[in-house]
């Protein structure tokens, strides 16, 4: 039902992202998604790995502060207004989206949207009622 995402605390200074990506790269762990948002001094790197559990173990061992968050993932057609329709649904139900990112896999004509909302259970219900295709970790 939910998609697991890892969140890593990162200082805003050169070399930090390399350290993270290299730690996983040398263990042969692939990223499915990666998103970074930052403030002046620090950022949170959010990503999904092919093998989230191993990624979690590796980063813990390397001394990162790493947490696991559950996201809602939906699949929509890769066409104009598809994202807007999903967002509109949430807004109509008065549900706040904390953050969201989307990506398109090559050779697919669909786009995937990942979002973090306050009341995840209710959001899932709402999306299901409207017939929107939900992603699980495997589908990624």
């Amino acid at each position, binding site marked *: 039902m939910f998609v697991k995402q890892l969140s890593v605390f990162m200082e805003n200074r050169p070399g930090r992202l390399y350290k993270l990506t290299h730690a996983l790269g040398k263990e042969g762990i692939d990223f499915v998604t990666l998103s970074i948002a930052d403030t002046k001094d620090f950022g949170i790197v959010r990503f999904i790995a092919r093998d989230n559990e191993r990624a979690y173990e590796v980063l813990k061992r390397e001394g990162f502060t*790493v*947490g696991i968050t559950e996201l809602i993932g939906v699949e929509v057609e890769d066409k104009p207004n598809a994202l807007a329709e999903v967002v509109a649904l949430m807004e109509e139900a008065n549900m706040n989206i904390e953050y969201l990112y989307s990506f398109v896999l090559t050779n697919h004509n669909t786009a995937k949207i990942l979002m973090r909302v306050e009341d995840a259970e209710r959001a899932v219900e709402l999306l299901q009622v409207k017939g929107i295709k939900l992603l699980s970790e495997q589908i990624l």
Partner: protein
Amino acid sequence: MMMFSPEIETMGRKQIREMQLERLKHIVAYAYERVPMYKQRFDAIGLRPEHIKTLKDIENIPYTTKDDLRDHYPFGLFAVPMKQIIRLHASSGTTGKPIVGGYTRKDLDNWSTCIARLLVAAGATDEDIFHVAFGYGLFTGGFGLHYGVEKLGATVVPVSSGNTERQVMLLRDFGATALIATPSYAMYLAETAKKMGVLEDLKVRLVCMGAEASTAETHEALQGLLGAFPTENYGLTEVGGPGVSGECREKAGMHINEDMFYPEVVNIEKNKVLSEGEQGELLITTLTKEGMPILRYRTKDITSLTYEPCKCGRTLARMSRVVGRTDDMLIIRGVNVFPSQIEGVLMGMKELGKTYEIVVDRVGYMDTIEVRVEVDDAGLLTDYGKLEELVARIKHALRVVLQIDVKVKLVEPFSIKRAEGKVKRVTDLRKH
């Protein structure tokens, strides 16, 4: 085993004072006769050893300072010929020449006794296995504690400093029940053991900490992480090293080995000896030292004394944990700030790691102070709001305690350098 020297540790106040007076008279005459600096100082003000008739008369003796020790580097304050000195130690000496101490056989024996007393007061017995993670060498910590453990008859593992992962392995494999380290290194060892997944395998039940002052919050954090009982002890190279005082199980101040050290707390600016309970700078007079007797040494450490007998049964005077050093005090935009106040705030927040650093700088004419602290709690990562709220909360708590605004920066775990000896928390970049 309750006390290592019960006859001394439970002596009545009157008897302690009588013994101290007798020893004070002796050490003053001894220093006057054998150390030219003391003879000159006494002669300059017309003071003679026989003028010391009561303990209060000590107030007429001039202070001894760190500069005096530096000026007489290396052996100028020794009171015996080198033949009788069987050990030398020296301070780390971050600035200029180190402070040197010389010990006769009797001095070393007394020193070990002082250490053995504080280890027993902390709860140790001769069945404990002590992992000594103080550096062995000129630093007084390693050898000082080492011989104290042997005097107690417990097992000593002289690991010294460095190679933390190997230390964790040895802690586990040798089954050490007591750890001797600086508070910051004890914390680092515990963090490393946790990271290595062996924290549960450790049998450490006591942590005897010295060489740096620590706060109640650090003790709690360490006890929580390691499940061991932490105590603090106190000493300084200038008067012989560790062993001046140490906490008992009550943790209600550090018991001073008053048969060997005579403590006073003074207000330096007013040149006034303070009463019991008043906070000021600690002076120490060595009562038994043969190699290098020191009269009224200005420790620069800020503390207070109490002579109330302790619940543990000891009657020896207690000094509060050192709240700061007159040397460590920072003046930020005209306000006095002790790093220990900042530590107190940070250690009280469970989301934070236990390592921090303080950077002081000046931009234009304005002093700035920044506190960098490691983020340890993954629960904060769900959204920015939580991280920002944490920063705001730390700033607010610091503002309440210090009365000034402090910049707070969250940094990654293990990004602040760990020290294996004395930790340096403060970097002052101001050009004075």
